[in-house]
């Protein structure tokens, strides 16, 4: 399978990428690891006229500690994240999730920025950035801005990124206690359900992916947990649960409760 024709441009700065996005608009796509984009292009589900390869931008694959935060460059691969001592120590839940993405080869190429921008409803990181209250840093023609993870996901493959913006980094607070639980779709290894729980004293923050077309913070679980109720039972309260050939609404709802329970008990 060969994608439709496109023009390939490799940029060396964020500014260059933003200029090209502005110039080509909807006809352009950003290429980072390419592990969601290229398969879609090969199936001709997506046929951009211009690919802007951002992997040559220096510094965008770094992982640094900045005060109370760990700042992850958008071009960091899943393998980099799971092997980074800084991530293992300070945002361990991110390393846990990275280790569950796809397989070795996919983890060696796919990036956190690409995954977040793509916003696949079954991707792993959305649950983690939501539970961690991470901040997505985006740059566009009007400069740089920070988007709270809770304001980032809008729907299936849809985010609040503007057409001229690219993700440059993700800022994570240090997370002492976090756990990611995932029920795999066993062939693709996407999450049928993925649940990230971050613990802070007696309260928890719960991010859920794979269940709805938009990843969400399970606030009903968080409130019930604080009230010592059976928190996991509230995993899909007020949520429109997805149905597909891997899991129908009833089964997926059940899985969500089980995964929340496991993550809370971990």
């Amino acid at each position, binding site marked *: 399978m060969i994608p439709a024709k496109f023009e*390939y441009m490799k940029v060396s700065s964020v500014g260059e990428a933003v200029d090209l996005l502005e110039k080509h608009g909807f006809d352009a796509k950003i290429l980072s690891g390419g592990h969601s984009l290229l398969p879609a292009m090969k199936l001709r589900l997506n046929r951009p006229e211009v690919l802007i390869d951002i992997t040559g931008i220096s510094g965008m694959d770094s992982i640094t500690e900045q005060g109370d935060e760990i700042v992850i460059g958008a071009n960091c691969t899943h393998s980099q994240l799971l092997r980074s001592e800084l991530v293992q120590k300070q945002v361990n839940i991110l390393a846990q999730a990275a280790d569950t993405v796809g397989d070795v080869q*996919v983890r*060696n190429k796919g990036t956190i920025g690409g995954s977040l921008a793509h916003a696949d409803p079954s991707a792993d990181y959305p649950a983690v950035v939501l539970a961690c209250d991470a901040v997505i840093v985006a740059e566009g023609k009007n400069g740089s801005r920070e988007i709270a993870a809770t304001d980032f996901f809008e729907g299936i493959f849809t985010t609040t990124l503007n057409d001229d913006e690219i993700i440059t980094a993700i800022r994570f607070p240090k997370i002492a206690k976090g756990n990611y639980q995932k029920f795999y779709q066993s062939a693709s290894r996407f999450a049928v359900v993925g649940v990230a729980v971050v613990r802070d004293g007696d309260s928890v923050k719960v991010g859920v992916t794979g269940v709805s077309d938009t990843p969400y913070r399970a606030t009903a679980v968080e409130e019930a947990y604080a009230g010592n109720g059976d928190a996991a039972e509230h995993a899909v309260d007020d949520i429109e649960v997805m149905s597909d050939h891997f899991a129908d609404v009833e089964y997926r709802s059940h899985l969500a409760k089980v995964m929340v329970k496991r993550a809370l008990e971990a």
Partner: protein
Amino acid sequence: MKISIRINGKKHTDEVEPRISLTHYLRETLDMTGTHIGCDTSACGACTVTLNGDAVKSCTLLAVQADGAEVTTIEGMAKNGEMHPIQQAFKEKHGLQCGFCTPGMVMVAADILKHTPNPSEEDIRHGLKGNFCRCTGYHNIIKSIQHAAELINK
């Protein structure tokens, strides 16, 4: 677009269309058919090569993305007519049946052993998640990779 890739230690410079995958470039332009096309959708791992030392699925990598990189394919594993220890181990432990998935298995094994020189069975199974053997001969593949670790560490 002009690209230059060092493949198995030898530099190749060619004019390619941006939409051509690294697999197609290897097989069609360079006639290096050791890298197999199985699913062509980044599921099966038959097309695995290493890119700057890391295992990647060459069907999901444009040749232009590999411009300037070091690529190793199955053809680059044997040195001076001597099989690589991973290949030797696959031979000794009957790690191949029909052989179609074997190039990918050997290349991903190189990545597994690079990061875990003494892998447990679970480490190997986790590492092989992206490689399918439709003869379902995984047991011997796992034994082969364990044996390869012994040969390399000897």
